[in-house]
C-alpha cells in the first residue's frame, strides 16, 4: 500500500510528523514533487477560479498523485482551541478533494473544541491502516518527539540569524507560501543572492508567539496569523525590513496584513502573488526595497 502526500498546505506544517509516523509504522509513501508547471496546470484545471493560489497548487498536487498511489492523505484541521482556528481552506480541503477526484482518501480531523485531538486523529489513521492502538500510539509519540526536535533546531538556527551582520529581512508568510518553490522560493533565493539574511516568520517559538500576539490584537482567532503577529513583535527591532508575502486572494492575510501595516511602524513591502505573476516585476520591487532599508 502506498500513501500519497501532496506537497502543499498541510505538508509544510506536518511533514516531519507524518513522515516519521509512517516510517515508524513501515508504510510506503510518495510525496509529490516541488510545484512545477505541470502541477500548476493541473491545479488550474480542477479548481474553481476564485480559490486562492495555494489551494489551487494543492489541488494540482493531489491531481498529480491520483493515479500513483492507493490512498491520499488529506486532513481536516479546524482548530486547536477557540482562539486558535485555522484557515477555512483547511476545513474544506477534504470535502473539496473528495468531490473533485474519485480516489480513496486517508483523512483525519483535528478540532479541539469538539474534542478531536491530534492523538485521537493519529490513532484513527493507524486503525485505518490496520495497526493496533498501541502500535500507532508508539509511532505517534516517536513522530511527535522527532518533529519537535527538528522544529527546535530549525527555530534555533533561525533565531541565531538575528545576530548576524548584513541586511536582515523578515519574510512574513504562511509556510505553505514561503517554502513553495513557485511562490516564495524564487523570492528567497533572489534575496539571498543579493546578500540579505532571510529570517522566516514561522520559525519562532510557538507558545511565545501566541502569547506575544495578544499585545497587538486581543480578538484575533486564527492560529497562523497569531503566530505571524507574535514573530513580528518579537523581532521587529532587530530586522531591517519586513516583506509580507501572500497569495491572491488569501482570506486571512487580506485583513491581518493590512492591520499590522496600519498598527506597526516598520519598513515593509506587501507582495501579493497571483497566478499570472511575472518574477521580473517582483525582482524590481525587491531590489528597490532592499536599497531603501
Amino acid at each position: 500500500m502506498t500513501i500519497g502526500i501532496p506537497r502543499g498546505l498541510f505538508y509544510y506544517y506536518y511533514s516531519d510528523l507524518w513522515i516519521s509516523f509512517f516510517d515508524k509504522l513501515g508504510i510506503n509513501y510518495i510525496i509529490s514533487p516541488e510545484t512545477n508547471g505541470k502541477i500548476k496546470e493541473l491545479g488550474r484545471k480542477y479548481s474553481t477560479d476564485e480559490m486562492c493560489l495555494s489551494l489551487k497548487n494543492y489541488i494540482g498536487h493531489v491531481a498529480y498523485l491520483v493515479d500513483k498511489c492507493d490512498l491520499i492523505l488529506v486532513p481536516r484541521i479546524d482548530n486547536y482551541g477557540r482562539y486558535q482556528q485555522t484557515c477555512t481552506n483547511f476545513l474544506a480541503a477534504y470535502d473539496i478533494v473528495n468531490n473533485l477526484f474519485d480516489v480513496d482518501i486517508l483523512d483525519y480531523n483535528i478540532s479541539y473544541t469538539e474534542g478531536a485531538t491530534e492523538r485521537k486523529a493519529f490513532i484513527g489513521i493507524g486503525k485505518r491502516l490496520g495497526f493496533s492502538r498501541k502500535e500507532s500510539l508508539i509511532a505517534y509519540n516517536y513522530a511527535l518527539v522527532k518533529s519537535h526536535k527538528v522544529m527546535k533546531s530549525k527555530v534555533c538556527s533561525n533565531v541565531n540569524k538575528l545576530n548576524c551582520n548584513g541586511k536582515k529581512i523578515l519574510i512574513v508568510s504562511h509556510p505553505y507560501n514561503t517554502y513553495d518553490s513557485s511562490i516564495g522560493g524564487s523570492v528567497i533565493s533572489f534575496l539571498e543572492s543579493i546578500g540579505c539574511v532571510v529570517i522566516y516568520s514561522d520559525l519562532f517559538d510557538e507558545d511565545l508567539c501566541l502569547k506575544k500576539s495578544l499585545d497587538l490584537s486581543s480578538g484575533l482567532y486564527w492560529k497562523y496569523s497569531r503566530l505571524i503577529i507574535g514573530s513580528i513583535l518579537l523581532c521587529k527591532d532587530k530586522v531591517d525590513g519586513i516583506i509580507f508575502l501572500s497569495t491572491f486572494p488569501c482570506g486571512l492575510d487580506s485583513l491581518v496584513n493590512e492591520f499590522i501595516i496600519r498598527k506597526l511602524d516598520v519598513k515593509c513591502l506587501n507582495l501579493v502573488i497571483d497566478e499570472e505573476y511575472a518574477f521580473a516585476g517582483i525582482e524590481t520591487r525587491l531590489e528597490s526595497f532592499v536599497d531603501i532599508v
Partner: protein
Amino acid sequence: MSRLKIGFPQIGNYSIPARFLFSNILDCDILEAPSITNKTIELGVKHSPSFVCTPFKYTLGTMLEVIDEGANVVVQLGGGCRYGYYHELQRAIISDLGYNVRVVNLVSAGRANVFKIYRELKSIDPKFSRVRALYYLFIVKRMIRYMDYVDDYIRCNVGFEVEKGLMEKYNGMMLNEFLGVKNVFELNKVFKKYYDKILGVSLNKPDNVIKVGVIGELYTVMEPFSNYYLEKSLASFGMSVKRFTNASYLLFDKGKYVRRNIRKYSKYVKYKMGADASDNVMRAVSLCQDGFDGIIHIKSSFCTPEIGSMSVINKVCRDYNVPVLFFSFDANTSRVGLQTRLEAFNDMIEMRRK
C-alpha cells in the same frame, strides 16, 4: 460627556430589530442607517484593503456614513468566518481617518460571550439592566422570526402581484409599526394585521411556474440587489423563488439543521466546511431531490467558505442533472449583466422542460 449616539452598519431590514432592541435597553440615541447607495460603496472601497470580501467594504462604507451623521459608537456584529475579525481592522481604519469613535463588537470567534457583551453594554450605559434586556431580547427574537416569515412569503410571490409594489408597502408599514410595540401581544397583533393584508394581495400566478432555489451566504441580505430584485426579475420569466439563508436561520436553526443532516448527506459533505458552506451543499442536495428546476448560488467575491462549497455544489448538480448558476457580487456588479445571465439561465431551463 455628550449624549451617546449609536450607529449600525446596514444589514438589510435587520437594522429595525437592532434599533428596537438598543433604543429600548440603552439610554441613548439610535441613528438610522442610511440605505446603501453608490456613494456608500465608493467610500467603503476607497478605505478597504483590495482583496478583502465585499461585505467588509459595504459595512465600512455605512459605518463612515453613520459617523458623518454624528454617531460616536458603532456596533459591529461579527460572525463565524472572516466577519468576526472585521471590527479590529475597521477600528484601525476609522481611527487612522481621524475619528474618535468607539467600535463595539458583539460576537467574537464565532460565539457570543454573554459576559463580554454585558460588560460592553454596561460601559456604554451604566444604567443598563439585564432583566429589561432579556425581556426585549425575547420580543426581538420573535420579531425576527415574523420578519423572516413574511419575507419568505413575499419572496415567493412578489413577482406575481397584480398591483406592483403593494406587498413591499405593507412590509414597510409593518416594520415601521414594529418599532413602536411595547410587548409580545402588540407584536402579534401587528404581525397578524399585516400578514393578513399581504396574504390578501391578489396574485396572478400561472400554474406551472418554474421553481428555483436560491442558496448562498448572509451577504445576500445586505447587497442592494437584495430588495426583491432577483425575485422580481425571475418572476417576470414566470419563476418562483425559494430562498434559505436569513437571520432566523443563522441565529436559531443553523446548529440544529447541520447536526441533523450532516450524516444524511455524507456522500458529499463529511465535515463542516466553515461558515455556511456545508449548509449550502446540503441545501443544494435537498433542492435537487425535491425536483427544483434550477439552483442559483449567490456569494460575495472572495468569500472563502463559499468558494470551497462551489466545487462540491458543482458535483451535486452534475450528479442530479440540475442546472446551477453562480453569482459573485462585488462593488462593481451591475444590474444589466445580472439580467442577461438570468435571461440565459431561464432560456436554458425552459428548453430543458420541452
